[in-house]
Every structure is written in structure tokens, then in C-alpha cells.
């Protein structure tokens, strides 16, 4: 029983990070049919903003040197600004392009951001500890849970609740939901495209910043490709959960996390390394069986 709960905790905390990433991707996809692979690089840059640009392996703190409330605020601000700039410079001119073209352009943006980090910080991974309090282990009902896992789960659930409240009760949130439903109709009804899309990117940036902090706290290492890996799983999770809906996207994230964690436990040791392949294969199956989520807006093309 205890072992089982341990697996559940692992699954949920891993799933939390995926859920935050896939929610960001799903939010932007719903509105402008863009699969934003650069979401992962928002995370990466958020993490690197803790450090000052330097070539050496020893980390030189930048935002990481500040008191933690200020640090959190500034990291989030950096990523939000980055997301907004990305939207303005790269994605806005492409707004009417085919979804596949948009996907390719987001690869370009992602490639750009990754290499920007390499130019500034080199490609060497850097070690960084965000305080000792979060690396302690708490004992709850005989379960030993790393406090960072607990923090991740709590933060994620809080954010999911906050975002659904935002989407439900604020004017901008309503406009976003309307746009995700039918962007053209929403625009006809007076929704201002630029505001809604900028709002979605701001939220995506905010979530990216949160993931950056949680990930850094969990791993203690900052790596150029960390965010991209997360984006891949987050993205495939969005597909599995259904790209049409935000709830689906978040659930997809948890599901992928859970499946990964469970497969890690139940698969025999020599098959275990291939568990990610199972997740990727599931993506193809979902695409075949339920393509609606992906192409909801175009599936009923009028003949």
C-alpha cells in the first residue's frame, strides 16, 4: 500500500510539470492553432535567468542571488516578457498560416532560443541549489515525500484552479474561451485578437516561469535541453488529452506523467528504458482513433 502511494505521488508530481506545460501549449493552440514548441525554451530561459551569463562551469548567480520572493517575481516577469516578445516578433506575422507552418515556425523559435542560451551561457549544464528547505523529506502517515514534490503538486493544483477561475470569471478569460471555441466568430463579436493572444502568451509565459523554478528546484541542474524535453512530453500530452480542450490538455499532462511513472515501476528492467516509446506510440494511436481533437475546426470541411 505504502509502495503504491509512493508511486502515485511520483506520478502526480511528474504529471504536474507536464500538466503545466501541456496546459500552456493547449491554451495557445486552442486560440491560434499554433503548437508552441518554444514553450519548453521559455522554461529553459526562466531557469537560466537565475544565473548571470558566463562561460565557466561554476554558476554565477543573477536573479538566483535575490531574496526568494523577489526572485520568483522577477523570474516570472522575465519569462512573461519573453513570451510576449516571441509572440509579437515571430508568431503575429504568421497568424494566418497553416497549422503545420506554424509548427515549423515554432521549431525555428525554439531553435533560436536554445542557441541564444548557448551563445550566452555555453552548452555546459550548470549546478544550482535553490535553498535546502525544499530538498528535505517530510513524513506524512508513514510516507516519505520530498517536500519539493509536495510543493510541485500544491502549486500546480493552485494554478489550475486559479486559471480556470480566470477563464470563467474575468472578461479577458471569457474572451479567451470564446476564441478557443471559434476564433473567427469571436473576432466578429468584437473580441480583440491581439489582446486575447497576448493574454494567452502571458499566461503561457507565467506557467513557463513557474515550471522553470520547480524544475530547477527538483533537479538542481540547469541544462539547455531540459525545457525542450519537457515541451515534447507536454506537447504529446496535449495531443493525448485532446487539443481542443484545456481540461483535456491538463489531464493529458497528468496522464502522461502517471503512465510514465507506473510503467517505470511495472515494466521489467530490460524493457524499462523503452517506456517513453510507449508514450509516443500512444500519441499515434490517439491521432488515428480520435483525430477530432487536433483538427476540430477543419474536420467537417464543407464539400
Amino acid at each position, binding site marked *: 500500500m505504502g509502495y503504491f502511494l509512493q508511486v502515485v505521488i511520483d506520478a502526480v508530481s511528474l504529471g504536474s510539470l507536464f500538466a503545466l506545460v501541456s496546459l500552456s501549449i493547449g491554451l495557445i493552440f486552442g486560440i491560434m492553432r499554433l503548437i508552441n514548441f518554444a514553450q519548453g525554451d521559455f522554461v529553459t530561459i526562466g531557469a537560466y535567468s537565475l544565473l548571470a551569463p558566463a562561460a565557466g562551469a561554476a554558476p554565477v548567480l543573477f536573479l538566483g542571488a535575490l531574496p526568494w520572493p523577489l526572485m520568483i517575481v522577477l523570474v516570472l516577469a522575465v519569462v512573461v516578457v519573453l513570451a510576449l516578445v516571441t509572440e509579437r516578433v515571430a508568431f503575429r506575422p504568421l497568424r494566418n498560416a497553416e497549422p503545420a507552418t506554424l509548427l515549423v*515556425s515554432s521549431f525555428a523559435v525554439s531553435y533560436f532560443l536554445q542557441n541564444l542560451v548557448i*551563445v550566452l551561457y555555453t552548452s555546459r549544464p550548470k549546478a544550482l541549489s535553490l535553498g535546502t528547505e525544499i530538498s528535505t523529506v517530510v513524513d506524512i502517515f508513514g510516507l516519505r515525500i520530498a517536500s519539493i514534490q509536495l510543493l510541485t503538486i500544491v502549486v500546480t493544483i493552485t494554478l489550475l484552479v486559479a486559471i480556470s477561475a480566470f477563464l470563467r470569471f474575468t472578461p479577458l478569460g471569457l474572451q479567451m474561451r470564446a476564441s478557443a471555441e471559434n476564433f473567427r466568430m469571436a473576432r466578429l463579436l468584437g473580441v480583440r485578437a491581439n489582446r486575447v493572444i497576448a493574454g494567452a502568451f502571458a499566461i503561457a509565459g507565467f506557467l513557463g516561469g513557474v515550471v522553470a523554478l520547480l524544475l530547477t528546484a527538483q533537479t538542481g541542474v540547469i541544462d539547455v535541453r531540459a525545457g525542450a524535453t519537457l515541451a515534447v512530453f507536454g506537447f504529446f500530452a496535449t495531443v493525448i488529452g485532446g487539443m481542443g480542450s484545456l481540461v483535456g490538455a491538463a489531464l493529458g499532462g497528468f496522464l502522461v506523467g502517471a503512465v510514465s511513472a507506473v510503467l517505470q515501476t511495472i515494466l521489467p528492467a530490460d524493457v524499462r528504458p523503452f517506456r517513453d516509446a510507449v508514450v509516443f506510440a500512444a500519441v499515434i494511436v490517439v491521432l488515428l482513433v480520435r483525430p477530432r481533437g487536433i483538427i476540430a475546426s477543419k474536420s467537417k470541411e464543407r464539400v
Partner: protein
Amino acid sequence: MIAARNNFICHLKAATPVLLLIVPLVLAALLADQFGSIGVLRSVTEALIKIVVVVGLYIFIGNSGVISLGGTAFMAIAAYATTWQTCCSMMKPMVMSGLPEFLKHMTVPFAPAALIAVALAGLAAFISGLVLMRLSGLAAAIGTLALLFIVNVTYSNWDSVTMGASSVVGIPTYVTVWIALAAASGSIVVAYLFQISRAGLALRATREDEIAAQAVGISIFRTRLLAFTISGAVLGLAGVLYAHFLGVLAIDMFFMQLTFLSLSMLVVGGMGSLAGAVVGVVSLSLVIELFRTLERGIWLGETKASLPAGSQELVLAVIMLCILIWRREGIMGWKEITWPFTRHQPVSASGEKIEAAA
């Protein structure tokens, strides 16, 4: 006699778009071989191999209009296949203990090994295509990307035959500039023959309008599957060339980086024409070469100025974005090159001149 001559001229005319692509490549190879330094020669060889890659991508993406992100997976499959057959007979039984017995103790000559590897890549494309070609548009792009990840995860963990994440070294390096040239020319010819074939035309019709194409009796699934298979085989050839050009093989050589680079070349050149594929490789290779030099540093008087590592990729991403934003049809913009150089006159993909509509 006259008929035969007319026929010959007719064929020559039909072959112009191909010849106009191949002849400059031959000249480049000749010049590099005669006058270039070893570095230049290697760069030219590598660019020729990249032409095989991008032309391989073009066969499917260009004609179908469906973006596949899984092409590099077939390169990996063929690269490993040729390595298993030709590499390091002494070490093989130990470092690749999972290979079947007959492979472990046998070394296959280069040419049959390459053929088998190419066939295997084609077969892999065919089998995965049976599933993936049922998808369209964005779903196809995502599905093929998932395929790339599946192959990557499988090969990087299948330690007993791929040596996992570590590199295989000591692969015989027989790829000279001439072999690369032959492969590049061959792939251009294959792509062109496919493009003007019935299947190629049918595939281009599906690219223009999926629904109308079905209404005139075209099976989208079958035409795409055929192109995906041919494309997979040509990409397989590129994988074989890479392995035997570098002499080193690691699975991450065939992952996101190469996928992005080759797709950029196709997009920048123009994914609507074969000429676009070749022009894309040539132009981006030149840019990359320039920035590689700058990253190594150049002497300005007394001081050595150099760009930091990563600048080359930054520039590449910016070029790609600019093309996507301002000239989505790429440099060539759906046109093939015809003789005399009438690039501005619209030409159908079969190289047939188009008269202006009244």
C-alpha cells in the same frame, strides 16, 4: 532518323530541369577536387550528402504538401543497418553482442550493404506509412514527429546492437566527393522521375485539394504511402552516406537538430519544387560555412575576432523565420529552373512551360 533525333531532343528538353541542377553540382565537385583545400572538399561532400537528405524529404513533403518530421528516423535506420554490416569486424561480437549470429561474424561488401540498408529504410517507411499515411495535415506532422521520437528512444536504449547513447567508431569511410555527387545526382533523378510520373502528379493533385482528388479517383492513402516509401529509401541512402562519410555514428546525429536543419533547407529553398530543395541546401550550406568560419575567428589586423559558438544556429533560425514570414514559398517559389534561365516565367512541376492565361 529525323524522328529519332526529334525524340532525342524532346527527351533532352524534358530532362533540362534535372540537368540544370546536376551540372552545377558536377562543376562544384570538380573545382573542389582540383583546387579546394581538404576542408573545402569535405564541406562540398557534406553539402552533396545534404542534397540527398533534402531531396529525400522533398519527394514526400514537396509533392504531398504534408509536413513530415520523421525523415531523419529513416536515415538513422539505414545508417545503423550499414554499420552492422560493414563495421569493425574485430569489435563487433563484443560491443554489439545483440546482433544476430550471421551479422556478428560477417562483413558485407560496401555496395550490397548500402543497398540492404536503403531497402530496410524503405521498408520501415512503408510499414510506418501504413499507419501514418492515414493522417493528414497537422496530425500527420505530429504523428511523424512521434515516429522520430520512437526510433530515437529505441535506438538509444537498444544497447546490445546500437551501443546505446555512445558512438560507434571505426566505420569505413569510403564516401568521397564523387560518391556523394553520384548519390546527389541519383536522388535528383529519382525525385524528378517520381514527380513527373502518374503517381507524382496524383500526389500533387492531393496537395492542391484532398477532396477533389478523391472525387477523381485518387486514393490519398496509397499515393502518399508510395511517396513516403520512396522518400524513406532516399533518406536511407543519405543515412548510409553520413555513416561512411563521418566514420562515426551516434543516434543523436539523426534527431531534432538534423530534422530542423534539413526542413529549414527545404523551406528556405522552397518546398514546392525540386530546384527549391537543391537551392535551399546550397544557399544555407554557404551561410553555415560562412558563420562556421566566423566562429573559428578571423584576423582583423592584430586582433582575432570570433563569434561565440551557437551564432551559426541563431542566424539559421532567423533566416528560417524571415522566409516563413516574408516569402513562405521559399527562394524558388514553386518553380523549376528551365533553359534559358526563365525563372520568372511560371513553369509546371513537369518542367513544361506555362503560357500566360488570356
